[in-house]
């Protein structure tokens, strides 16, 4: 998330998409001209049998920017990124790459664009199984007519960039998923393109490798300063990598903004759901993560008993309640030792009353400041001040991490 501040893409527009439409079906132009163009996706399908892929999508990407296209499957994000290379022909609209509309390109110009200006990385890698790593990476240069020696030189450089030096002669089938995607990235980078399109490049990888690849991509981006357009269905990924995020649904962009914007002011319920799903600390309540205390003390217990109980429970401190189970405070080993030394028979008046508390409904995110303000556990109390459980610092962190893991795996 810190990237947004560190990297500062220039103001120069590198790629601009202007009201792009894609309708799959026999007669897309008719829909474009008719009233149906504003109808919901489902209605268009029912009435014409055509599938709406993209509806009036516009955005512009600045040079060196990390631009995320995010949405669930069927939202049009993959269609959109494929249109940028015309792997799918858009029905209407224009795509300006450095000021030129590539929708009007003829075959040779389009091929030139694909060979030199834009590189693409795919979810399923799309590596050539019969070529070695080096041949895979050099392929784009080969079809572009680069002489053999130069293309292998450049391929080796790209392979080194993605950290696969020494694997040049292996076949892709013998590499792990993460390494195969590195080959995919190297292949896209070999021609030194201005723009890198990435279609869910890390979705097929397991969470650990995925995180590693994300970090490396950030480094790579810092080093190479490419313009990257990145498709993902994972909001975490979008928040982590993106300078700006475009959220898509049913073929339309419904919100476009920085990660901050998306988190703090979701455009509608759809985005809000997304944000909540992906950021559990914003929705998870204390109730979900509270624990039964391993030791709970009563106000009438004497210091000797308390010391014994603290020791056998191996705790430094414990919460104290009255006979109605209402929280009175907290007692530590030091206090107890002191009481014993002074010969005070009850712990009642020596409690630390200023202990961190929260209710069952408190959202986990709000626990962070409470937890950091004190070095004790947080006591969870109900409306009548009764003690219902406690939350350790560790538990808060664990809940964050494990929940992240889950959403990542979706």
């Amino acid at each position: 998330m810190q990237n947004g501040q560190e990297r500062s893409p220039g103001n120069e527009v590198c790629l601009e998409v202007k009201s792009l439409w894609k309708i799959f079906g026999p007669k897309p132009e008719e829909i474009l001209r008719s009233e149906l163009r504003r109808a919901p996706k489902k209605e268009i399908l029912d009435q014409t049998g055509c599938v709406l892929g993209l509806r009036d999508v516009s955005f512009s990407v600045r040079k060196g920017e990390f631009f995320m296209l995010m949405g669930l499957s069927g939202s049009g994000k993959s269609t959109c990124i494929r249109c940028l290379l015309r792997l799918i022909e858009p029905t209407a609209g224009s795509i300006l790459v450095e000021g030129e509309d590539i929708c009007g390109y003829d075959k040779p110009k389009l091929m030139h664009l694909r060979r030199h200006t834009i590189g693409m990385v795919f979810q399923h890698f799309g590596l050539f199984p019969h070529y070695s790593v080096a041949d895979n990476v050099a392929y784009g240069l080969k079809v572009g007519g680069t002489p053999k020696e130069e293309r292998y030189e450049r391929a080796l450089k790209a392979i080194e960039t993605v950290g696969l030096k020494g694997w040049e002669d292996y076949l892709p089938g013998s590499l792990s998923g993460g390494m195969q995607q590195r080959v995919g990235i190297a292949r896209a980078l070999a021609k030194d393109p201005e723009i890198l399109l990435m279609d869910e490049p890390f979705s097929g990888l397991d969470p650990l490798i995925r995180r590693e690849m994300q970090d490396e991509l950030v480094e790579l981006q810092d080093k190479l300063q490419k313009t990257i357009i990145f498709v993902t269905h994972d909001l975490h990924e979008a928040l982590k990598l993106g300078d700006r995020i475009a959220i898509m649904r049913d073929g339309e962009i419904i919100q476009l903004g920085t990660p901050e914007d998306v988190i703090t002011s979701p455009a509608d319920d759809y985005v809000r759901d997304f944000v909540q799903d992906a950021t559990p600390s914003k929705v998870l309540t204390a109730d979900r993560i509270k624990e039964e205390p391993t030791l709970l003390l009563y106000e009438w217990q004497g210091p000797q008993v308390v010391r014994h109980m603290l020791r056998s429970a191996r705790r430094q401190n414990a919460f104290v309640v009255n006979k109605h189970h209402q929280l009175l405070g907290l007692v530590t080993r030091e206090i107890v030792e002191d009481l014993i030394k002074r010969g005070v028979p009850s712990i009642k008046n020596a409690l630390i009353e200023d202990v961190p508390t929260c209710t069952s409904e408190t959202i986990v995110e709000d626990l962070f400041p409470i937890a950091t303000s004190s070095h004790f556990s947080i006591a969870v109390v109900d409306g009548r001040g009764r003690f219902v459980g406690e939350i350790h610092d560790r538990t808060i962190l664990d809940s964050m991490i494990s929940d992240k893991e889950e959403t990542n795996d979706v």
Partner: protein
Amino acid sequence: MFNFPSQIRIPLATWIDQLMDWVLAHWGAFFDALGDVLLQVLLYIEKIFLWLPWFVVLILIGVVAWRALGRWWHGLIMAALLFIIGAFGYWKLSMMTLALVTSSVLISLAIGIPTGILMAQSDLFESLFRPVLDAMQTMPSFVYLIPALMLFGLGKVPAVFATIIYAVPPVIRLTNVGIRQVSKSVLEAAESLGSSSRQILFNVQLPLAFPSIMVGVNQTTMMALSMVVVASMIGARGLGLEVLLAINRIEVGRGFEAGLSIVFLAIIIDRITHALAAKQQAARR
């Protein structure tokens, strides 16, 4: 009235006969010329097979089989089978059969692989051509002998012609299937890197379809062998003619020797081409 009405009669036979008459009348010269060219090629290939000393062929087959199948004793067995054919007294005839099979297969591949490529590129062409292929394969092979005979007369050329029609479908089919099986994501990647369709065909589709094409080559070869035997009925000399003569004269022993020789030949050809195909497939994994 429960019999099929005899007034209804599709005179397909007459039409086809008329078509043949027309072809013979107008295209006769063309087929004569084609037949001459074909004959020269066939004779040349046959000459090579007959010119090779028997032990050279034995060693050659042994070594190739050893290389392809992976064990030296496999090579030895193949060479031994060929040796037994020679010991039956059928060396020359088996070489003639082999020459016919070889030329038929070469021509079949020259026709079949490009056709398969075309079929893979166009769905329309595939849907049109698929029933034709089905018909070519299910039609009793003897039927091809008649037009072949009419177009080219007796001898090797009509035999090869009929053999090609019978044997070409598998290689077409498997070339088509092999190319169509290439994963879409690989094709998309190739396209995204700026390949022309020709570059995609030669760099990606054909290499990846190669194992499948090799299976087609194997099947085509086996079918060519079986058809060459049948084609002996229109005068192609070889092991098949020997079987035919044995039938006519009711010589059980002779028929059995010739039949066994054909079986041995089939085993040798099948094992070697099959192993080559499998080897290709294994190298990809």
